Structure formats: C-alpha cells, structure tokens
C-alpha cells in the first residue's frame, strides 16, 4: 500500500514532468524539455491552472524555478485563486523560485503605430538568468496578440517568442484561447502556433445534460509517443487531475491468497473463506435487498480487524447509514469515533462521474484506506454521465486493485428490469471478482431476501440460493429448503423446519421405546437361558447319579452271583443279564 502520493516521475533530459496526475503518464514523462508546448482551450477550460501547476510542481518537486507571464489576470488574483489548491505561492515567490510578471495590457492603453514583445523578452531573459528559471508560462498570449494590427505581425511575434524560448532553452507553455472549431483570427493563430510548437494539448469543456465534462487531449508531441485519446480530467481540490486508465507496464498489485471476512460468517463459508484481499466485490440487487447492510457488515468486520476503511454512501447521509445499520447490530459509530472508519456522504459531491472518482480516490488516499465500500456505484451512471460512467467504474476497480484495496461496491438494479440477475447497469459485473446477487422471492404472500453467489473468481463457492435474514442480532444466512423444485423461504421455510423438527422428535422417541423393548426382551431371554441351564445341570446330575447307581447295582449283583456260584460250586458261564428290578 502506498502511503503519501509519491511522485514516480523523475525529471529526464528530454522531458520536464508536470507533476500532474495522469498527464505525465499520457505524455510518457512530461512536456518536451527546452521546447514549447501549446495549451489551447476555451475560456474556463482550465488552461491557467494547468500551466500554473506545471510551474508550482516544477519549483517544489523538481527544483526547476519558473516564470509566469500573466496577460489576462493580475498575479494577485492568480495567487489568491491558487491558495484554494493549497499551493503556497507566496513562499515560492520569497524563495525566488516562482516569479509572476504582470503583463496585462492596461485598460487605458493607447496604441500608436506598431510595437513588439522584444522589450518584454529582454526583461524576461534577464529575470530568467537571475533566478535560473527553467520553466516559463505565457498565459493567454492571444490577449496581447489581439493588439497587433494584422496576422503578419501576430505571426512575427509568435516566431519571436519561439526563437526566444529556444535560445533560452526554457520549457515553455503558451496558453491560447481557442475552441478549435471556431473560425476567425484565433483559429488562424492557433494554426500557426500548432505548427510551430513541439507539443500541443487541447482542453475541452462540454456540458452533457447539465453535467460538466472536461477532457484533455494531447494533439501532438514531436519525437515522443503519447496517449492520443481524449482523457477526462478534473480540477479538484489540489489542482489538476487527469484520468488515465491504468497504463500497461505499471507495477501490478501483489496478488495474495489472504482472505478477508465479508462480515457474515456463513457468507464466508459459502465463499470458501471470504473475499480475497484486494478483490473487488460487486453486490447487486433491487432496492431494499440489504445491499447496504451486507456492505456495512464488511466494513464492520474490516474495522474490527483494525483496518482503515472508507464507506462512501451516495444514497443517504452518513449518520443515517450508521443509524440504519445499527438496527441490525452493525455498530459503526465506535469506529468512526476512533478514526478507523471514514464515512463519506457523497451526496455532497456534485458533478461528473469523474469528479466522484477523483474525490473517492483522494479521500481514500488521505484516509489510507485498506477497505473501501461504495454504495451504490450505479449512482455514477446518473443522468449526464452515461458515457463516462463505465470507464470511471472500470478505473475505480483498476485503481483499487493497484492499491491493494479491497473494494465492495453495490449496484442498484432497476426495479423495472427483469427479475432475473441481468447485467448491472455499468457492466462492471465482468470486472468484479466476486459477484453476489440479492433478490426478492415472493412466495406464499411473503417477500423474502435471497442471496446467491453468481461468481467468485478463484474460490470454490456454494451454488445454492440462501436466505438472508436481518434481525436485531445481525445478519445470518440460512439454508433454504427446496420442495418440488422451489426454494422455500420465510414462513414456509420455518414451517418446513418445524415440521422436520417434530418428525425428528417423534422418531427419536420411537427409537428409544423400541430399544427399551428390545432390552426387556433380551433380559427375559437371558433369564430363560439361565433357568434352562440350571435345569440342564440338574438333569445331567440326575443322569450321572442314575448311571452310578446302576453300576453299583451291577457290581453288587455280579458279586452276588459269584458268591452264589461259589457257594453252589457251579462252573457255568456267569449270566450277563443283570438283575433289574
């Protein structure tokens, strides 16, 4: 994560960096060093500010002192205006790094015959040597050229100026009021200048459906490649900012496998652990489907981890958001108080989508946010911004990725659009890494919130539509029941759940009963087995006894016969038949 805005551009032998966000990227490092750049645009298009910022940055960051030749405004006014951008011009003037030359033609100027700018250039030359100036701006040259009698004289002065600039090897900006398509003297001048200079930048200011849109285009740049497209720019709090898409080759953000919680435990489970750090998450849904709540949960979880977070709300006031989220026990106030969370109510920012983007970027940088919530991003495509909104959203995602900021943005779907998922209005769904869709399911006279994960790059995720339940205790996601191909939610889910609970209880009791019965039967059988065993033993004993008594009797009777035989003196074979009773 980058901390303070570090200027990555350094002064090179061929290019003089402007230090203006975006412009240096477009021109591949800045304006041609030692050459002249023409800055043309209609009135109020920001020429003076750009030119002045070029000098201020030169003096402050690149130790290149500069001279500002003001043909149109008094330096006092310029300096006062510049204060609003936080440029401390008075300091620079004291350090002799910046010099203002008041070259306004006096209002009571009387002309008699021809004149030229030779004197001014002589004076400037002396001044430039004295303060070692490297940069110079001629602001609103057309004002003074208009005093010249004819086109030939004007051309002569332009060439005089050009020659002077080349001779002094100063990096110059000449600003000129020109609308490009407007005919007449200015456009003639413009043509001459365009041909003469090495670099030409055109500023364009249009109003589309009441929304001001500013664009900058590098028209030519001798000896260098440049971004030829018209890029939106903004005059923000700290001056000029040109919006350029991420240029290739710029260091890509580190990709991590770290997960961050979505703030809802079961959503994390559904996503296989949560959002990826640095991912961009899109939550789409119709009004009231708890998009804000879900993003609020993310913000709370981020703050609980101690990560600096910014919550940009386009829909409602920050305090309202905090209050509303409090009702589902998302307590953000404590984090606002300790400074972890920055709530921004973007309703107070007016203007083009570009303005929003730049403000969001600036505020996020100031806050050093690691997590960012934009609720809803679809505001960007409000009236007058349709054309730029998509590119702005794209750049917001690109930027947050490059900064390693985890971005959660919600997108409001039109109520009138189909109830199916549909594309989000900005078509950023393709850019987002994780897309959660919230929907209403109307069923059995109820409207319940359904949540599903449409996509989540690089993570296994549940395919099931879940029910999102908001309560005092917070947000939960419940399993849904499908019956007959339909997902049951709300009361129907509850009924189904309770029926299932009941059935389970009955089954449990029945099981217990059965097992008790079986135990009893087992015990009875056991007892019977024992009784039989005892009986068996008795019988066996009896049998043994019987056998023994028979043997005794046999012996006795045999003994008796022997005795009789003895007594009788017989010799016949003893009778084997035992005498039985």
């Amino acid at each position, binding site marked *: 994560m980058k901390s303070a805005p570090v200027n990555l551009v350094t002064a090179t032998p061929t290019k003089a960096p402007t230090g203006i966000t975006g412009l240096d990227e477009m021109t591949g490092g800045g304006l041609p060093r030692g050459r002249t750049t023409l800055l043309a645009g209609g009135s109020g298009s920001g020429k003076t500010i750009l030119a002045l910022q070029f000098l201020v940055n030169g003096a402050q960051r690149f130790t290149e002192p500069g001279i500002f*030749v003001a043909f149109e405004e008094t330096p006092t006014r310029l300096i006062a205006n510049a204060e609003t951008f936080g440029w401390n011009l008075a300091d620079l003037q004291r350090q002799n790094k910046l010099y203002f*030359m*008041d*070259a*306004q*033609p*006096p209002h*009571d*100027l*009387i*002309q*008699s*015959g*021809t*004149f*030229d*700018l*030779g*004197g*001014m250039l*002589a*004076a*400037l*030359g*002396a*001044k430039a040597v004295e303060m070692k100036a490297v940069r110079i701006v001629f602001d609103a040259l057309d004002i*003074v050229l208009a*005093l010249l009698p004819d086109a030939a004289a004007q051309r002569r002065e332009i060439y005089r100026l050009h020659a002077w600039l080349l001779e002094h090897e100063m990096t110059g900006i000449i600003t000129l009021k020109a609308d490009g398509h407007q005919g007449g003297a200015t456009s003639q001048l413009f043509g001459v200048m365009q041909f003469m200079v090495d670099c030409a930048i055109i500023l364009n200011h249009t109003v589309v459906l009441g929304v001001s849109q500013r664009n900058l285009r590098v028209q030519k740049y001798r000896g260098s490649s440049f971004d030829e497209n018209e890029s939106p720019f903004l005059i923000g709090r700290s001056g000029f900012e040109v919006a350029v898409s991420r240029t290739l080759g710029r260091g890509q953000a580190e990709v991590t496998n770290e997960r961050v919680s979505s703030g809802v435990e079961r959503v994390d489970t559904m996503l296989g652990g949560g959002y990826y750090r640095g991912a961009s998450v899109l939550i789409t849904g119709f009004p009231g489907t708890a998009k804000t709540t879900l993003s609020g949960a993310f913000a709370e979880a981020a703050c609980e981890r101690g990560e600096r977070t910014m919550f940009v709300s386009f829909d409602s006031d920050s305090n309202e958001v905090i209050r509303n989220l409090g009702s589902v026990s998302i307590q953000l106030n404590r984090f606002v108080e300790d400074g972890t969370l920055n709530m921004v109510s973007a309703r107070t920012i007016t203007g083009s989508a570009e303005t929003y983007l730049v403000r969001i970027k600036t505020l996020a940088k100031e806050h050093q946010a690691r997590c960012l919530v934009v609720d809803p991003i679809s505001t960007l495509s409000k009236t007058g911004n349709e054309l730029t909104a998509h590119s702005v959203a794209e750049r917001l995602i690109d930027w947050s990725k490059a900064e390693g900021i985890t971005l959660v943005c919600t997108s409001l779907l039109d109520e009138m659009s189909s109830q199916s998922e549909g594309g989000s209005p900005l078509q950023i769904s393709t850019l987002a890494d994780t897309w959660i869709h919230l929907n209403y399911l109307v069923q059995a006279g109820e409207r319940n919130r359904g949540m599903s994960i449409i996509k989540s790059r690089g993570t296994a995720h549940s395919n099931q539509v879940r029910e999102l339940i908001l309560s005092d205790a917070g947000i939960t996601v419940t399993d849904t029941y499908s019956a007959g191909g339909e997902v049951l939610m709300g009361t129907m889910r509850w009924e189904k759940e309770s029926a299932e609970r009941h059935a389970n209880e009955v089954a449990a009791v029945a099981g217990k009963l059965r097992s008790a019965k079986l135990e009893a039967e087992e015990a009875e059988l056991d007892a019977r087995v024992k009784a039989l065993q005892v009986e068996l033993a008795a019988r066996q004993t009896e049998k043994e006894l019987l056998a023994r008594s028979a043997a005794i009797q046999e012996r006795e009777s045999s003994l008796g016969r022997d005795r009789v035989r003895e007594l009788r003196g017989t010799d016949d074979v003893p009778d084997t038949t035992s005498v039985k009773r």
Partner: protein
Amino acid sequence: MTRETKLEAYVFRLYVAGNAPNSLQAIDNLTQLCDTHLPDRHEIEIVDICVDPGRALAESIYMTPTLVVVSPYPGHRIVGTLSNTEPILQILGLGPANEREFPGLKDRNSAPQVRRPS
C-alpha cells in the same frame, strides 16, 4: 533629470528595446512631436530594457516601444512607434478633439496643426 515647473513641463519616459527598428522609430517620432508641439517644454528619458530590464519589470512594461507620460497627465501609456500622433496629442490635451468637444473653451495655447500621417 530636472523638472521645470514654471511652464507646464511635459515629462516623458520612453522604453525601448536596444536597436530594434521600431524603437529607433519611436525615438525619432517622439523627438519630432515634442519639437513640433512642445518646444522647450519637454523632457524625455529613454530606458533601454535590454540594458536595464529591472525597470521594465518594476513598471510592467512588456511591449516595446512604450511611452509613459510622467507629467502632466501621469499614468498614460502609449504603445507603438508613435507614428500616429493624433491619439497622443489628444491625451496630452493638445489635440483638435478638445476643441471640437469644448468649442467655447479657449484654454491652452493655440491648437497646433496636426498633420495626419496617411
């Protein structure tokens, strides 16, 4: 530079850029004008910006040649070669316009003949 206050002295300062043709022309024109309309009543200071750029910066003179009227109508600046004398004479109160505007006012010295350069 001395100032003669007894007879409405006209004090001029002419800023020039070295030997630039229009600067030399302005010097000539101014001298001629003064000789014609303000004989013995004028003072001319010539400032060469190439030599003394600081003065030009201090006075915000950036077009050359520039004539600054120091007295008696201070603040007026006339830019150019001064080839067209009419506007100069007007602001110096020497022009015929003054008469046309205020025909009843016979103020200063007799209105000078103005030759309009074609």
